[in-house]
């Protein structure tokens, strides 16, 4: 493969495009409501109408408005059909000819779509994720060519630093700095790992990206490998994402066939292989050191850092580990330039962030907004507020490691620092909206149960502390706890936060701490009077 070949592939793909494209969402959400049946019937209806030469029915990735699926969108008319059933196929075809047909439609110009700024999701819902040509037609692998053929590794590192990109896995570590550390770490062998072990309750950003645009991840990883000097990459994906895994496997196979992956990429001496490792259902394997242990075939438990993976990671070699969304940002940054990227977002948080909007909200789905977008814009304008005219009470970000942001702080811009200040975190992008029917102590208990079940069991504070915290929350909800129990809960939160081994344990008290911070009265309402409220401590005869 050369640049010429790449351009030819693109030209050929564009030349064979038909006038009208019916994009049919084939991501896991829509598939679960029979999107495959919809696509089949659409193909059949096109054939029956004799429009094969004019109309292409294309299976695409996530079209974002997940709550209204299955979704079908027509190009170039832009009509967006929602809740499509296979029976609707003839009507959709009829509508292409200008006929007025009663089909449920959503407004593609509603704020849910117009307020988005797709970088990571740029190809999402547009290209066919199972065909590499479709990705190449959208300028795919161009950045890889530029990186490998026209740039030195240090230029790539420079670009990543200048872009200001920060890790999208949650903690927001500067990506360029991380890449630079791995590049500088001495070692004959280095590794690149893509963390696709998304497991936060309510989060589906990474799954959507993997299902909708797998080549973007591969391209980002190969560029990373070139920049840091690694020739082997692993994608660690949870087993609960079978469609993502299938599409990744297909993508790897296609990229290898075209010489974009494997030995001699773009006919250069650069080699890079990617293998998939499938998780076995442990949430803790999203923690980088546990993930690496799992890739090595060991029990997935974290180990103390330092040494950080950048110095000693997988198989004791320097290892670059980034999240799916981080890798998805890489090719666009190189292709469109660091200045362009650094121009989006806020001073300290550059670019965009993908969120999975869920919970008590009208528009459940996938969104990508510039960093610094106020939470209110996301939940009220784009999300359409709470359903049935309800009032939004809080927004939970960051999954079990995050916290609840109360409605009075909805004007907070979404960036790493602002969310941390409110006792939550950016996290990987789960955003769960709660309305006034939600009891915050219930929420805290739910997340604590999650952390308790998902603790790996290695360190005592997380293993046994979460059990006791959960027990106290259950006691509270059963109205059997008193002020001493609440004090004990707070003491345990502090202890588990400060003494646990890994991030999972250290952040497990966050849902309690943040709900205590903003909704303390809900805890206090549940307290029972203490019959021995004033113990005669240390009294001497």
């Amino acid at each position: 493969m050369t640049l010429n070949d790449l351009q030819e592939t693109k030209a050929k793909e564009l030349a064979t495009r038909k006038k009208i494209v019916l994009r049919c969402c084939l991501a896991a959400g829509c598939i679960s409501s029979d999107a495959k049946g919809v696509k089949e019937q659409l193909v059949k209806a096109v054939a029956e109408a004799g429009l094969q030469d004019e109309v292409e029915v294309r299976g695409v990735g996530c079209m974002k408005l997940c709550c209204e699926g299955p979704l079908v969108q027509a190009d170039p008319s832009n009509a967006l059909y929602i809740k499509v059933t296979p029976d609707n196929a003839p009507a959709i075809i009829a509508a292409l000819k200008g006929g007025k047909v009663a089909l449920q439609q959503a407004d593609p110009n509603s704020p849910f779509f117009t307020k988005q700024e797709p970088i990571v999701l740029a190809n999402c819902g547009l290209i066919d994720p199972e065909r590499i040509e479709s990705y190449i037609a959208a300028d795919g692998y161009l950045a890889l060519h530029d990186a490998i053929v026209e740039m030195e590794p240090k230029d790539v590192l420079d670009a990543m630093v200048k872009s200001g990109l920060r890790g999208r896995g949650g903690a927001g570590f500067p990506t360029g700095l991380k890449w630079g550390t791995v590049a500088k770490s001495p070692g004959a062998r280095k590794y690149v790992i893509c963390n696709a072990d998304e497991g936060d309750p309510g989060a589906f950003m990474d799954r959507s990206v993997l299902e909708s645009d797998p080549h973007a991840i591969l391209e980002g990883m190969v560029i990373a490998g070139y920049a840091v000097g690694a020739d082997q990459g692993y994608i660690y994906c949870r087993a609960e994402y079978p469609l993502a895994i299938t599409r990744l496997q297909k993508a790897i196979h296609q990229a290898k066939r075209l010489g974009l992956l494997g030995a001699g990429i773009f006919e250069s001496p650069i080699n890079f292989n990617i293998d998939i490792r499938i998780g076995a259902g442990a949430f803790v394997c999203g923690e980088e050191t546990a993930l690496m242990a799992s890739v090595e075939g060991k029990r997935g438990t974290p180990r103390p850092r330092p040494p950080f993976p950048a110095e000693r990671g997988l198989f004791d070699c320097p290892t670059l580990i980034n999240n799916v969304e981080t890798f998805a940002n890489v090719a666009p940054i190189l292709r469109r330039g660091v200045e362009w990227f650094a121009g989006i977002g806020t001073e300290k948080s550059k670019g965009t962030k993908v969120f999975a909007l869920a919970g008590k909200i009208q528009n459940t789905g996938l969104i990508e907004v510039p960093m610094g977008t106020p939470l209110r814009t996301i939940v009220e304008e784009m999300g359409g507020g709470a359903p049935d005219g309800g009032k939004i009470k809080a927004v939970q970000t960051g999954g079990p490691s995050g916290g609840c942001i109360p409605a009075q702080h909805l004007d907070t811009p979404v960036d790493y620092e602002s969310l941390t200040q409110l006792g939550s975190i950016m996290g990987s992008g789960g955003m769960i909206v709660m309305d006034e029917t939600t009891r915050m102590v219930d929420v805290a208990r739910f997340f604590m149960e999650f952390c308790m079940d998902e603790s790996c069991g290695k360190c005592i504070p997380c293993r046994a502390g979460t059990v006791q915290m959960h027990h106290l929350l259950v006691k509270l909800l059963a109205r059997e706890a008193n002020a001493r129990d609440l004090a004990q809960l707070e003491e345990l939160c502090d202890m588990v936060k400060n003494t646990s081994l890994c991030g999972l344990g250290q952040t497990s008290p966050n849902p309690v701490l943040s709900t205590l911070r903003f909704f303390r009265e809900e805890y206090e309402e549940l307290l029972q009077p203490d019959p021995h409220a004033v113990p005669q401590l240390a009294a001497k005869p």
Partner: protein
Amino acid sequence: MAAKTLTIDGTQISAENHTSILQAAKEAGVKIPTLCHLEGVYDVGACRLCLVEVKGSNKLMPACTTRIYEGMEVTTDNERLQKYRRMTLELLFAERNHVCAVCVANGHCELQALAYELGMDHVRYDYCYPKWGVDASHRFMGMDHNRCILCQRCVRVCWHIEGAGTKNVSGRGSKSHIISDLNEPWGNSTTCTSCGKCLLACPTGALFHKGDTAGESLRDRSKLEFIVNAREKQQWTV
């Protein structure tokens, strides 16, 4: 051998480069409590009892896995650390079924000793009373999960001193437990060499010689150190 100078609890000491805080403190006569550290095998930093404060770091650092550096200032003991350590012990006592009075390790138990050394005179948390069994299928050794604190010492000696790889951890969270082979009864294990090193390593009464009754399980850890020293440093004397 390069030496580093550091301060532990206000006293300047020097120790060999690459030494852990735990080791450096030990050489200087400062005892830092720990339950998962065992001389002779690598550290895992799991029990969190050896957490210390290091000036300049806002996180507590495990003394066993943190290497010393020049000018490091370490605090191994203060009110906050004592509080966390006591809480850790309380959590352990509440987690499984520790009945000191009838335990084979009574009087020789590291958990029991740490509890009184750190002044833990009662447990404020509700006891969990989980149902754990005893694996008495081995010819002359037994494993009582009720007394296990999951320090993984047995796993480490089994893999890294004996090289048998019989012991392992299975399950997650509070359901984690030590298994033999692929969760076989210990007596059915085809890998166990019956060397007994796990018994020497166990800090509590979880692993014991059958026939030992209350207070009779003595552990001679120096045997493990001897084997490791003999192998790694060719030292054949105790």
